[in-house]
């Protein structure tokens, strides 16, 4: 991150709930104007982190500073931020316009200013003409935009979003994702965004902070997370379909890195890095596997294979591929595409690079053993 002071500084913050959930000794720096996504499975502490920044939860230990000011014990309204809730939290008895200007009215903003800010917020979110409707009379997407408008109307430099897209259908989610990203860049605000959907994180974030059990698993830009997962958990969580994680003991000795104990290693391979070959004799070090099924998705086909001694793997092949379940195949990959994780789940050696990871796909296209239409 940059040399200048981070916009949000979280220093060794802990907040533990009864039962052990929460966040433990968390430190995060968030640069000004960035789009930061807190990613993780449910119960990983990402929402708690967001609520700590918002001030809806108070830290047991540690400090939180926003814009150079210590806000650890400052109430939410004095932190200069806005928030979009998963449920949108619109006031059902107020009209769209009244929902948007609720905060401005509470803060006793001047009438003319309220009016001009409202007009702008309605304009930015494309809600003109809906001012007098009640939330119940709007579609899910429109309600989502009202929540957005309420978040941006006050002009706070920081906006927190708690899974704002999870109540939308898949198609709308895609377009709103782009809208939110555009809006953030146009207004130059800092956004902290919580989601459990790695696609959202990868497509929107400047920085992804992957969390697990109240701790940071890996933080970095989306490419880092994808190409150099720091842990086996990060490798399995980011990417769809997920990276196959196989115990190294199921692999032929030839591919195991030298001077390591195969019994303790985990091997990871991205679906697009797997090369399938029906000719099981040529490549001496390939893994033999059985095809269990395939899914055609238009531009690509997922082929599911069973490997003895493992939970199986997925291969992502370009175009349409016909391959019958039960076919014996040999799996191989470019050496640099392999990810190795130690017994503690930590990455062993930084082996994958963008170029190396792409290589196997080209080699597959020349492989004529699998008929392709």
């Amino acid at each position, binding site marked *: 991150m940059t040399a200048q002071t981070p916009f949000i500084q979280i220093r060794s913050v802990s907040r533990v709930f009864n039962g052990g959930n929460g966040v433990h000794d968390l430190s995060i720096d968030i640069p000004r104007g960035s789009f930061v996504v807190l990613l993780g499975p449910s119960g990983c502490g990402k929402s708690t982190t967001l609520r700590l920044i*918002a*001030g*809806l939860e108070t830290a047991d230990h540690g400090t939180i500073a926003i814009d150079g000011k210590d806000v650890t014990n400052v*109430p*939410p*309204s004095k932190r200069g*931020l*806005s*928030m979009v*809730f*998963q*449920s949108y*939290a619109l*006031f*059902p*008895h107020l009209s769209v316009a009244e929902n948007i200007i*609720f*905060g401005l009215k*509470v*803060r006793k903003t001047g009438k003319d200013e309220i009016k001009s800010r409202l007009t702008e917020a309605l304009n930015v979110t494309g809600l003109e003409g809906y001012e007098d409707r*009640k939330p*119940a009379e709007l579609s899910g997407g429109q309600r989502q935009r009202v929540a957005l408008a*309420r978040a941006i109307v*006050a002009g706070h430099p920081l906006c927190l979003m708690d899974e704002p897209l999870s109540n939308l259908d898949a198609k709308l989610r895609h377009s709103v994702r782009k809208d939110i990203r555009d809006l953030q860049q146009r207004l130059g605000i800092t956004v902290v965004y919580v989601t459990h959907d790695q696609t959202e994180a990868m497509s929107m974030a400047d920085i992804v902070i992957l969390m697990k059990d109240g701790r940071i698993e890996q933080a970095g830009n989306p490419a880092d997370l994808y190409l150099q997962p720091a842990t086996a958990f990060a490798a399995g969580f980011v990417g769809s379909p997920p990276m196959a994680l196989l115990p190294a003991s199921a692999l032929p000795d030839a591919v195991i890195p030298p001077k390591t104990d195969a019994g303790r290693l985990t091997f990871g391979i991205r679906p697009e890095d797997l090369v399938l070959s029906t000719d099981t004799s040529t490549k001496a070090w390939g893994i033999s596997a059985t095809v269990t099924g395939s899914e055609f998705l238009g531009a690509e086909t997922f082929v599911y294979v069973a490997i003895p001694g493992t939970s199986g793997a997925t291969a992502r092949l370009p175009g349409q591929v016909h391959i019958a379940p039960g076919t014996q195949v040999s799996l191989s990959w470019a050496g640099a595409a392999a990810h190795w994780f130690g017994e503690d789940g930590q990455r062993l050696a930084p082996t994958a690079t963008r170029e190396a990871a792409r290589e196997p796909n080209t080699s597959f296209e020349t492989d004529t053993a699998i008929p392709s239409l």
Partner: protein
Amino acid sequence: MNDMARLQKQRLALYGWMLAAPALALMSLFAFYPAIATFWHSLFTRGTTRRPSVFAGFENYQDLFADPTFATVVWNNLIYAGVTIPVSIIFALIMALWANAHIPARSFVRSAYFTPTILPMIAAANLWLFFYTPDLGVIDQITGFFGASPTNWLGQPDTALASVIVVTIWKEAGFFMIFYLAALQTIPPDLREAARIEGAGRWTYTRRVLLPLLMPTTIFVFVNAMINSVKLIDHLFILTKGGPNNASKLILYWIWEMAFAYFDSPHAAAMTILVLLALGLVAVAQFRLVEKRTHYR
């Protein structure tokens, strides 16, 4: 018109009447017919064996208006309603807000508030009879501790109505609290947090979000409180019997007295009709005015 379509329409109409029939029959038997019969009865004089009842027009009504007790009783009931309705609603709301908060022994607080509702009114009135007993009752024990002289709360015109009002509020507020509590639990906590982030304090949140969202409940509770202010007279039989000097006499008690103590049923019928008229007017006004300003989810 197509024969088939007409037949279908007729059949639908038949179904409609069949579905409405049970309610219609019961309502006619127990509400419409008695109301009309009461009105008819109120137009006749009181019959005795020597002087049979004759048609009197609105004479019974004129008698009522001329009776000074009428003014006293109506005024008493207005005070009774005017105090019990708002006070019990406000108490119910405050109690519900408290019982809904995260406090220790929450279920104990809730059941404690609800206890007066479970007790029969007669039993509750007997309980309060002990509380109000001059010199020996709990209230005089407490005031006596601070040096006040004993008061005959139920036995003097100045305090009789107020004492009855207190019992009613005590009885009602816990019941209404349950409705507020149920309504409060349907309000998502997100709204509270959203309001907090927008800078709304406790009071602003209550005034601008909570109370409007509780409005449907408030109307329901209000209607119930209003009905109770007319019909809830059980405790009068135990506590004051309307006295002293009619100071705590309410309309329904007066009607009961006329009909079953003095056996003057025509005047009681006339009074009943007046009450029905008044309640009907209030109901219409309530639907016209309040419903429009309420948000139902």
